[in-house]
């Protein structure tokens, strides 16, 4: 894949889309206008209504022997007028009350059954809770009645020479711990996740449709296919264009929604207030990104199956409905982010945004949802890429999905970049949930053994078999050249020390030291593992299993992109991502860059295994030999390590043996080039 060609396609598609009034209006203008207008209107209506209710006197009917003193208290305290006074209640008081309330002649009826006497007079308040006016006035009158009741009790107790307080052994008052900001956040947490997801989907909807089905209908997709471009470059350029528009629209509209919600909650009677800080907005936006990656991939993959814009609208509507369904979860009272719900795409983002708004989510939840969503997004992007490589789809053939999903179309020998990313996505999900399972029930030794064998080594071998990738070629199972051996020795000798220095620097950042201490407790001399077990489990096993996975399967797939940079950087990032903690992710990615480059240059898996082994082994030993660790931090030792690493890196360049076959790029359909 050539980045410049992808950029040209991306730029052209972005310009063309921005010149399409329909897309711009639907993605930017409509949401930017609709949300503020909607909330301003609702807020204004609510404020007006509240004011009107406060100014209006309650119209009350009093039927039966309701005490006059009570009616007088209601008139004074609830600002009410008794407009319908009957000594005898009607035969069917509920029906009559309903009729009067519906006709707006009264807001409520106070009903005391005929003949009611004694120290306790029953009074029923008949009101219609579905009528806003009736409901509000009933609450006002009920409060007045409660106050009058308390006053009567006080008078009676005083007349009996008793303290009025003794009649209330418990003085119960309900108080809301949530302040106005939290009430506002709670309201926003129900609404905002849904709005955000729908916003992402609708923002990308028209752009995706225009650049897929729209282009097919207008005949420009075939024009593009006559140029020397790969289908994967076309899908990448188009995908980036739609994603850029979607995220831009999301940012614009997130601000507009936040503003609208702030005004909307200000008008709420509950006294709730909502304001979205920059950090919260940033966290929400970051959370929405993987959802956008997935939604855009699905819109592109499905959109291109359609032969016309109109057909595309029908095809894409179910995706919109799915997104809305996932967004509805924020309205459900019991919905929570759990390990199970975190696995469900889009639903996990809804619940995370909800939890972020009410202050229940932290960095760990964000990372988990991000990682899981990213895995889903990768699968979605691969589906889009797969669809774009199908002749029948691009040329508007009949029943194109048959070609997309047919086993014959999928068959092929060896790994591809998309295949490698799919493998990484599958491993990520497997590792996350598998680790959670192991953590609860097993020892550290079993956890490491199980994860290295069960999540890395065995799945890697199974993946190669599944996709008929020859093991020796895929994993580069060959000895390095003599120069490669020398480079390996130098890199192994110096690399671990350079890595330790980098790690020391990272420990300066907040939270890194705590993580390092936790790792030390788990794997170090105070942990459960003896020295021998630690060397095998922490050094040897990961050196083999992780090299087979990341410098074997993942690198093999990515290097068939035709770009060495994509292969090395991509495999390093994937390797880093599996270390979960942000500092460890950074450190592992840096080591991954070196290991990936060494694997490519040496043409062998062996140097990577040895460098990895020495690096991890050194950490185990240093933890148990503090004196040695101090010596290794001396300027001279660090300088020697740097020199050794630099010399090794220089020597390993082009040290690949001449005999291996040259690496071919991934086969691409539509007669795309194989250069």
């Amino acid at each position: 894949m050539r980045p410049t060609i992808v950029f040209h396609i991306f730029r052209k598609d972005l310009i063309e889309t921005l010149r399409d009034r329909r897309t711009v209006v639907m993605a930017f203008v409509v949401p930017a206008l609709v949300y503020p207008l909607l909330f301003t209107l609702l807020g204004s209506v609510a404020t007006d209504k509240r004011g009107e209710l406060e100014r209006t006197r309650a119209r009350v009917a009093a039927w039966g022997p309701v005490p006059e003193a009570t009616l007088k208290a209601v008139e004074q305290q609830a600002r009410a007028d008794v407009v319908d006074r009957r000594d005898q209640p009607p035969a069917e008081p509920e029906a009559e009350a309903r009729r009067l309330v519906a006709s707006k002649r009264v807001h409520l009826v106070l009903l005391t059954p005929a003949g009611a006497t004694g120290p306790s007079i029953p009074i029923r308040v008949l009101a219609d809770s579905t009528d806003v006016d009736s409901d509000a006035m009933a609450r006002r009158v009920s409060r007045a009645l409660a106050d009058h009741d308390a006053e009567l009790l006080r008078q009676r107790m005083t007349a009996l020479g008793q303290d009025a307080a003794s009649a209330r052994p418990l003085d119960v008052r309900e108080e809301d711990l949530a302040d106005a900001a939290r009430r506002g956040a709670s309201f926003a947490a129900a609404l905002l996740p849904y709005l955000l997801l729908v916003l992402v989907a609708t923002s990308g909807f028209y752009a995706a449709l225009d650049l897929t089905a729209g282009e097919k209908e207008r005949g420009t997709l075939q024009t593009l296919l006559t140029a020397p471009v790969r289908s994967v470059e076309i899908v990448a350029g188009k995908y980036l264009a739609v994603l850029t528009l979607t995220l831009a629209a999301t940012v614009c509209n997130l601000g507009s929604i936040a503003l609208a919600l702030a005004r909307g909650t200000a008008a709420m009677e509950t006294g709730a207030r909502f304001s979205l800080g920059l950090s919260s907005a940033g966290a929400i936006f970051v959370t929405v990104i993987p959802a956008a990656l997935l939604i855009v991939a699905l819109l592109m993959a499905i959109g291109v199956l359609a032969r016309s814009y109109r057909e595309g609208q029908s095809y894409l509507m179910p995706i919109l409905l799915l997104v809305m369904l996932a967004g509805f979860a924020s309205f459900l009272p019991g919905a929570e982010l759990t390990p199970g719900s975190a696995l469900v795409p889009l639903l996990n983002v809804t619940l995370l945004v909800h939890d972020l708004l009410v202050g229940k989510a932290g960095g760990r939840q964000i990372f988990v949802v991000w990682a899981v969503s990213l895995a889903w997004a990768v699968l979605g992007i691969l589906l889009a890429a797969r669809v774009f490589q199908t002749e029948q789809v691009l040329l508007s053939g009949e029943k194109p999905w048959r070609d997309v999903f047919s086993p014959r179309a999928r068959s092929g020998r060896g790994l591809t970049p998309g295949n490698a990313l799919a493998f990484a996505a599958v491993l990520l999900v497997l590792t996350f949930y598998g680790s959670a399972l192991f953590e609860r029930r097993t020892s550290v030794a079993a956890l490491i053994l199980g994860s290295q064998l069960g999540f890395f080594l065995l799945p890697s071998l199974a993946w190669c078999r599944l996709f008929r990738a020859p093991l020796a070629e895929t994993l580069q199972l060959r000895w390095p050249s003599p120069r490669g051996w020398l480079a390996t020795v130098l890199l192994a000798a110096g690399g671990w020390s350079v890595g330790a220095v980098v790690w020391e620097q990272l420990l300066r950042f907040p939270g890194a030291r705590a993580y390092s201490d936790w790792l030390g407790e788990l794997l170090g001399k105070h942990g459960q593992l003896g020295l021998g077990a630690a060397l095998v489990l922490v050094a040897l096993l990961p050196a083999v299993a992780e090299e087979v996975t990341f410098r074997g399967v993942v690198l093999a797939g990515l290097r068939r992109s035709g770009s060495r940079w994509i292969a090395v950087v991509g495999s390093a990032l994937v390797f880093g991502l599996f270390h979960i903690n942000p500092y460890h992710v950074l450190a592992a990615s840096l080591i991954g860059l070196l290991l990936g480059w060494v694997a490519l240059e040496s043409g062998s898996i062996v140097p990577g295994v040895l460098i990895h082994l020495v690096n991890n082994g050194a950490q185990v030993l240093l933890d148990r030999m503090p004196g040695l660790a101090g010596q290794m931090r001396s300027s001279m030792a660090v300088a020697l390590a740097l020199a050794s690493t630099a010399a090794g890196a220089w020597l390993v360049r082009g040290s690949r043996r001449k005999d291996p076959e040259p690496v071919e790029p991934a086969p691409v359909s539509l007669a795309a080039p194989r250069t």
Partner: protein
Amino acid sequence: MIEARGLSKRYGEVVAASEVSFTVGRGEVVGLLGPNGAGKTTVLRMLAGVLTPTAGEVRIAGHGTEGEAFELKRALGFLTGDTALYQRLTPREVLRYFGRLHEIPEAALAARVEALVARFRLSEFADRPCGKLSAGQKQRANIARAFVHDPPALILDEPTTALDVVTGRFLLEAFREARAAGKAILFSTHVLGDAEVLCDRVVLLHRGQVLDQGTVGEVCARAGARTLTDAFLARVGDEVAA
């Protein structure tokens, strides 16, 4: 320069093209003629590397689709009724875009675009969105797009259909000029009069198979007809009518 060797394309049980073979030499214009549904578009798409043949081989300037598709596409200018222009881009932007996809250096591309704007008389509307152009203006811009990377071979499907006489004549003159410059041109058309005056040789395609090929005179002689239209009707007319 353009070679089709036993090209076949099947969609399940449907045979869209079967064993189609012909060549177009340097400085030669060959007409690919056939009724609707004859398989012309399928053959042209296979030649352009847009469609993968079920069997057979394509060579454009010596390059095949297997492993050399980039070289093949760089050597070919392709225009069919299905290769439309971007409605919201201007002809100048379209030319620049395709020039960049062909990896022409920016400085050379600017000069090349201006040369094409002048050659195909696009200057009046070169900065107007393609969606607002007339059919003739669009076709001139589209042909300029096929010429942007100065390919040695051209495949032009119905380039003069639905154009006014002036524009049609102008384009035929441009194709003659390209032939004189040594380019190989495969020319598909329903306007048999155009084929008669422009083509050095013709290939008659029917139901995915080559019925006949040769110079216009040879094809007419074999069909016992005086004109290409009569020869065409003599070979396929009865079946089409049926």
